[in-house]
Structures are given as C-alpha cells and as structure tokens.
C-alpha cells in the first residue's frame, strides 16, 4: 500500500443506493441497491462492463444526479436532500472531475482553464498563486500557460484538467477513464501523477475498464448488472 495513510473517515458512503430511470417504454433500473464506503486517502477503481451501471454510479458520486432511493453521503452531506445549486456548489468545492476527453473550455487558455474553479468559488481571480502551483505540480511549464487547449497535446490537456480539478482542494478526485484518450506512455505518466496525488493524501475514485490501470488503485469495486459483484 506504498505507506499511504487511509483514515477511517468515509469521504463517500453509499447505503442501498438505487437508481431507476423512468422512460416511456418502462422503468429501467440502473443501480439495484449499492452500498460501500470510500475512505479518506483511498484510491478506488470502479470497473464493470458496458451497461453495468458504472457511469450511473459515477454520475451519482459526482453529484450530477441523485439516487432514486437509498443514501449517498459525500463529505458528510446527504446529496438527496440538496437543491440543484447546493449540488453545484458541492461539485465546485468537494469534487475534482477528470474526464476521458479532458473537457477543457476551448475559449480559455491553459492557465485560465485551471484557474476557472477558483474564480467560481471566490468570485475573483487567483491572487495566491495556487493555479500556478497546481500547474507546476502536474508538470506544466510556464511556457504553456497562455496556450489554448487546441494548441496542447492530449497529455498536456489532461494535466491542465488535473490542475483544474485540484485548485479548489476538493475532498475527492473523480476520474472517468482518465487515460482512455491517451497513448500508453502518456497514460502511464498521467497515472503516475494520480498515484502521486494519492500518496499526498488525495482520495481518488477512478472509473476504468482497463485492469492494468485499475491495478494502480488500492481496491477495485466491480459493478455488474447494477450491483456490486462479490
């Protein structure tokens, strides 16, 4: 376990979480009573085949959706009772998203992309140099600060996305196939960054279908047919 300290305090707690989508053709149950804890400092991989419900689970953990029933406690707060704005603030303050497609804002420079969550939270520019520190942490040089995303390589874009995910010092980093759009060398560099962040105490939940990537995690939760596989 590389000597990482994992506390007993859960960052995420799911208790019998169900998610049912009401469609015209009939109800579709995506998650059928999922329960698990993710502790502070853990690096957890979520795996499962297509249609297993892992994307639904990721959306719930990322507070982009709420459970139909059951309880989802994130950073001590029950998301089911929260308004849309409260969920948005929770995403802004407690969750750092890292997407497969990087999802940087094309209109902003690399620096501005990383700085954006600080402006959202504080209402003003980063005056403490946190953005620059995070960019340095993920290995981005000053020369790339003013580049637009289209002027960066995939690996550089993902580093900017990681810096953006970190600037508000979230309780949880949520990664959705973070190496899925990268070549193996760049992918392993990104995984090294994530492992390094975890070693510094960051809690990371990563959805992946690649068992090699999942091996970087402390444990893997397999989802099959909307349930946690034994």
């Amino acid at each position, binding site marked *: 376990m590389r000597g990482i300290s994992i506390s007993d305090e859960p960052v995420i707690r799911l208790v019998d979480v169900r998610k049912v989508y009401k469609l015209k053709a009939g109800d579709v149950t995506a998650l059928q009573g999922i329960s698990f804890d993710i502790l502070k400092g853990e690096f957890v991989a979520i795996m499962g085949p297509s249609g297993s419900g892992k994307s639904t689970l990721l*959306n719930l953990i*990322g507070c*982009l*959706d709420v459970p139909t029933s059951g309880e989802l406690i994130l950073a001590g707060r029950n998301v089911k009772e929260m308004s*849309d*704005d409260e969920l*948005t*603030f929770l*995403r*802004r*303050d407690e969750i750092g*998203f890292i*997407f497969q497609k990087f*999802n*940087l*804002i*094309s*209109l*902003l*420079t690399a*620096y*501005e992309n990383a*700085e*954006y*969550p600080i*402006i*959202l*939270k504080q*209402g*003003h*520019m980063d005056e403490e140099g946190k953005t620059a520190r995070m960019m340095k942490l993920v290995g981005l040089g000053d020369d790339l600060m*003013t580049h637009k995303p289209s002027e960066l390589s995939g690996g550089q874009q993902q580093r900017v996305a990681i810096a*953006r995910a970190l600037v*508000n010092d979230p309780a949880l980093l949520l990664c959705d196939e973070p190496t899925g759009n990268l070549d193996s060398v760049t992918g392993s560099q990104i995984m090294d960054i994530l492992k390094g962040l975890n070693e510094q105490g960051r809690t990371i939940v990563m959805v992946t279908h690649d068992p090699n990537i999942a091996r970087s995690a402390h444990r893997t939760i397999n989802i099959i047919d909307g349930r946690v596989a034994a």
Partner: protein
Amino acid sequence: MKIRKNVFFQLASRNVRLNFSRSLLAALGIIIGVVAITTMGILGANIQLAVSSNLSSSANSIIITPDTGSRGGFGPPTRGTTTLLITDNQVREIEQAAGHNVVVPIHSGSDLIQVGTKDKTRVTIYGLDPEKVSNFVEIAEGSSLRGASSGVLIGSTLAKDQDIKVGTRIKVGDESTGTNEVVRVVGILKSKGFGIDLMPDNAIIAPDHWYTSVYGNQGEYQQVDILVPSIKDIPPIKDAIDKKMNKKVKVVSITDSGALLETINATIGQISTFILLLGGISLLVASVSIFNVMMMSVKDRINEIGVLRSIGTTKSEIRKMFIYESFIIGSIGAVIGGLISFIGGYLLVRVIGTTNYFFTPASIMYVPYGMAIGIVVCLISGLYPAAKAANLNPIEALRHD
C-alpha cells in the same frame, strides 16, 4: 493574460469574437433596426419642431370666421363666390367680447396678378387696416402700409418667384376677373411660414380701403382676428364670443391657433409613431435573427455547458453568460446603429428641410432611445436560449459530442 473578475462576461465576449461573422450578421439586423427607428424618429421630431415653430408665431390669436354650416344672414357673397361674411355690427360684438385685446377685421380673396411681361398668376390678396399690419407681419425690405396710400406689401415667396422688388408695379386682375388695377410695392415681408391667421408668403397685403374700393364688401369681412398676449387668455374670450354670437344658431366659428397647433402636433405625432412602428418591424426581424444566433450558440456549446455545470457553474451563471452574449451583440449593433443614425439622420433632415432642430433634445434623444431599444430587443431575444442553456441536463450535455 488572466481572466477578468467577471469570467462569464469574458466567456461571452470571447465566444462572440470566436464566431465573429455570425455575431456580426446578427448585429447587422440590430443595426438596421436601430437605424430605422432612430432616423424615422429624428425625422418625425424635426418635422414636428419645424411645423410647431412656424405655427407658434401665430399661436396667440383667435380667428373668427362665418360658420359655413348655418345661413345666418351675413352680407352678400364676394364676387363669384358663395362665402359668408362677418358684418361691422358683428365685429363690434367681437370687440366687446375681446375687451382690450387687438381686433383685426380682415378682407381676403384671390385674384390674378401680372408683373411686367411675366405670366399671370393667382395669389391671395388680404385687405387690412394699415395701422394693424405690424401685428401680423415683419417687413424685410421697404416700408409698411401707409394710411391713404395704395401701396402694397408682398410675401417673401411671391417676391422671389416673380422677382418683385420695392417699387415694382403689379397689375392686378384681368378681363376674366373684372378688375384692372395697378399697385406699387412698398415693402417685402419676411417669411412667416404656415399660419392660420394669415399666410402672407405667397400673398399681397393691401390697405383695406383699396381692397373695398376694388372688390366691394365695405363693412364685411372674411375673418376677424383677435390678438392676445398669452395662450392663457384665449379660453375666456372664446367663451364670451361664443355666448354672445352663437346664442340660438351657430353663426361664427371660433378657432384658436393654439388648439390647431396641438391638433397638428398630435397628427404629426401619430404619423411619427406609425413610422416608428414600421421601423420596429425591422427590429422584430432582427430579434428573430438574434434568437437564431443564440440558439446556434447554445447548440454549439452544449458540451461546454455540460463541463461548466459539472465543475461547479450554477444554472444562473450559465444563463448570465448567454445573456451577456446577446447583450454584447446588441451593444455592437446599437453603437454602430446609433452612429449611423446620427450621421444619416442629420443628412436626411438636411436634404428634407432645415437642420436647425437636429441637435435639440426632442430630436437627438432618438439616438439613445433607439440604441436602448436595440439592446433591450437583443436581451429579450436572448432570454429563451439562455434559459434553455441553463436548464440543460449536465449529464446529457457532457455526453453530447
């Protein structure tokens, strides 16, 4: 380069720059709309101001004419016409009602005149007491009428058209009208414009004794004017004349230039409003264009909206970002439209008439008004697309490619 404090305004302005051609085309609609309503507004205001100014020179007078709706037994009609007249007795009644205000009985008719060998032309001829002429007109050249003289005054337009100078002799009448007189011009009048008491610009003003000696109608007049110091004095005098003269049947019509001024202003105002509404149609078309551009902007940025929402941007912030975008497009259109309206409006007013009133608040206010309407139209057009963007489901928006 760092993002300014208002990151949403920055995102909006950068998107406008990124899609510059599209945004400019949308702004073009607003430019046309703003120019249409502003120039039309300026034009209407300038016409109104010019007419009001011309009329206001005769704004403090009451005009009494025989009521054409009754057959009250006035004197015989003037030669060849069926016009009713106001008698001397009636003038005395009017004088009693008018108190100390100046009462001017006026003869008027028309006749052919000929200057030298030029073609004959028909003009209005007024017959006035020479002592009272100065109450109505100002002399530009020469002198005013004198008591026993038969010299006449000539309106500015007539003088210019017929090349009449002080001292010119004019032949009045011919075989067809039954008159054959020659009069000498003693003075040329300043231009007066449109008035309801006298319209002397294309007329001859002759002494009343000359008029009655040529056309008859001694002691009978086409109209009587009462000149009052202030518009406030008009209503009581009108009431007094009405009570005195229109007891059982209406024998005289009483008009005051102030009321006419209001009516004309109201009519011009209505025409201006109608023209403004026509201009408004172009703004309506522009609003559809803005709506379309904003909807395209939302559609193009669905994934970006999903990302912004997922990393902590609220619905209201997304809404704000798109409203800023329509505000920026509207402002570009309004500023360019305002400038074109200012220059174009000036040129248009100059071509049509005088620019004397262009810089008055009533005229120039249409520039900021037009610009404000342009921006408001853009903001309204952007409301639905902004709401649509804000209400996108972040999960579906993130999946959008």
